[in-house]
């Protein structure tokens, strides 16, 4: 929904009527107070990233130190150990980007198949996949490691990428969405016109499912980007680490080497800025997904 549509919807919305000044101040006041809770840690890390380790412990955490070291800190983050941080960042982009994209395509194809074809075994497949939604990812990670180590796949890009391209929840969403938005009559008409099944999927199906696919992609992207357990058990070589693992490596050294405080605060800031910015922009597209298709706006 665009901002304009939304304004229109709001004007017609009965909820908009009779909002008196008192309740506006009360409700907005509560929302402001709650937003402090969510924003203060982010503010703190911005302040902390401008400080030296010494200032970190001696100056007020809510305000900047007399001298600012943001550039120095960020430069050190980016250049430390021959720029390993940038490598971790690139790895995270690779895992989350490729994993998210492939997972979305697989889920869209599977969801479309389950929604638009009646075939033997359909419900069995669907039930199996739904069970997969409920299995904790970390419960499969450990046996996956044992399995991959027998296949010789551990400590490689594949060991993180392969499990990342499967999204049972994505398939579930795509099935609901395809059932609601791809009309059978249009598919029939395309068949009569002589289009092949794959062509119908690629042209009609995929196009209709774009909103659901955006949601699935975002879910998967964030899920992979934030993942820690899987890369932790799979990867031994720091060159393959995603950001989460790399930063944790730095953080684990602050006790012994206080200069790692600067690296860690700077690294936390640099690594959260892109994702937080993305969240601000992307939350518009993030309609929870669950209600997509089931109830159309």
């Amino acid at each position, binding site marked *: 929904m665009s901002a304009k549509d939304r304004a229109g*919807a709001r004007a017609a919305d009965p*909820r*908009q009527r*009779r*909002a008196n000044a008192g*309740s506006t101040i009360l409700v907005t006041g509560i*929302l402001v107070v*709650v*937003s402090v809770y*969510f924003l203060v*840690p982010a503010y*703190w890390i911005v302040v902390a990233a401008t400080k030296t380790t010494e200032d970190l*412990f001696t100056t*007020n*955490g809510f305000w900047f130190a007399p001298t600012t070291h943001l550039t120095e800190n960020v430069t050190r983050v980016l250049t430390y150990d021959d720029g390993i941080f940038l490598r971790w960042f690139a790895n995270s982009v690779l895992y989350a980007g490729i994993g998210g994209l492939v997972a979305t395509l*697989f889920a869209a*194809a*599977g969801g*479309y198949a*389950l929604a638009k074809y009646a075939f033997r075994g*359909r419900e069995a*497949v669907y039930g*199996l996949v739904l069970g997969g939604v*409920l*299995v*904790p990812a*970390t*419960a*499969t*990670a*450990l*046996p996956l490691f*044992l*399995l991959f180590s027998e296949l010789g796949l551990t400590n490689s890009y594949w060991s993180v990428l392969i499990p990342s391209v499967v999204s049972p929840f994505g*398939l579930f969403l795509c099935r609901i969405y395809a059932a609601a938005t791809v009309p059978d009559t249009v598919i029939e008409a395309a068949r009569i016109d002589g289009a092949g*099944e794959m062509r119908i*999927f690629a042209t009609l199906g995929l196009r209709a499912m774009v909103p659901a696919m955006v949601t699935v992609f975002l879910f998967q992207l*964030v899920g992979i980007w*934030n993942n*820690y*357990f899987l890369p932790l058990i799979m990867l031994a070589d720091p060159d393959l680490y995603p950001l*989460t*693992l790399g*930063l944790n490596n730095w953080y684990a050294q602050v*006790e012994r080497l206080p200069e790692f405080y600067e690296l*860690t605060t700077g690294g*936390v800031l640099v690594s*959260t800025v892109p*994702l*937080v910015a993305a*969240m601000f922009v992307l*939350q518009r597209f*993030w*309609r*929870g*997904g*669950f*209600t*997509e298709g089931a*109830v159309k706006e």
Partner: protein
Amino acid sequence: MKAQKAAPWLLLTPFLAFFTLAFLLPILYAVWQSFTRVRLSGLFGEDGATTSFAGFDNYAKALGNPEFTASIGRVLLFGAVQVPLMIALATVLALLLESASAKWPRFFRAAYFMPYGVPGVIATILWSFLYVPGLSPFLDLAESLGITVDVLGPSTVLWSIANIVTWTYTGYNTLIIVAQLKAIPGDLYEAARVDGAGPWQIARSIQLPLIRPALMLTVVFSIIGTLQIFAEPKILREVSPAINNDYTPNLAAYNSAFNYNEYNVAAAQAVLIALAAFVLSYAFLYLSNRKAGRR
């Protein structure tokens, strides 16, 4: 007609192939491993290993470890407190954001959702700085008021973890609930107003019942998430001696596998975690459906 028979399987094949590799096989493998034991021959296992059936020995070993059972109790306590609190907070925020009285709802929604983009590892590192005396402006502030709090002690650190989880996921759950609120047709509100319903009554008799699917989804996902808590305690261990190697079931399984090389016990623990997720999710869905049916 033939093409139409083959097409769904063709479309499903990529998904199912990787689903088998990344879900089915590991689960079957874990179950198999959890019922076997490996005996090494020779002093360092150099004469090879033999695998034999172990019955429920690995499960008995896992559940016989008081640290592991304590970790299960710990996450159950955590879930019983944190999940209802977080979902209640998310519901209230969603209702407020969608109410007529909220100014700048889009800004607030984005601000609440923002922490979801911060990986658990990084959120924990960030909060751990705010939990350490001398570094945390909050603890400094409390200190200057004459209050000394230890948020990393044995009785408090679990709730410090709960705070990190709440901070990360409340906005995400709010967004799911907001999406469902937006799907409520406008004429329902109109009708309620004509009947003279105020905002409280509208929330209670229209909005809350209609967002039930979203609430159930968020609760089930939160239950599954709670059982898997791993990154937060693992990283807070650096600053909190109150967290041991078996603080949560997942940490215990990790510990069995990688610190003790007891893969079979670790597999039994992984199976138990998955079973607990199933049982709790289904129990919740069953109970809430039964309650709804009676109404």
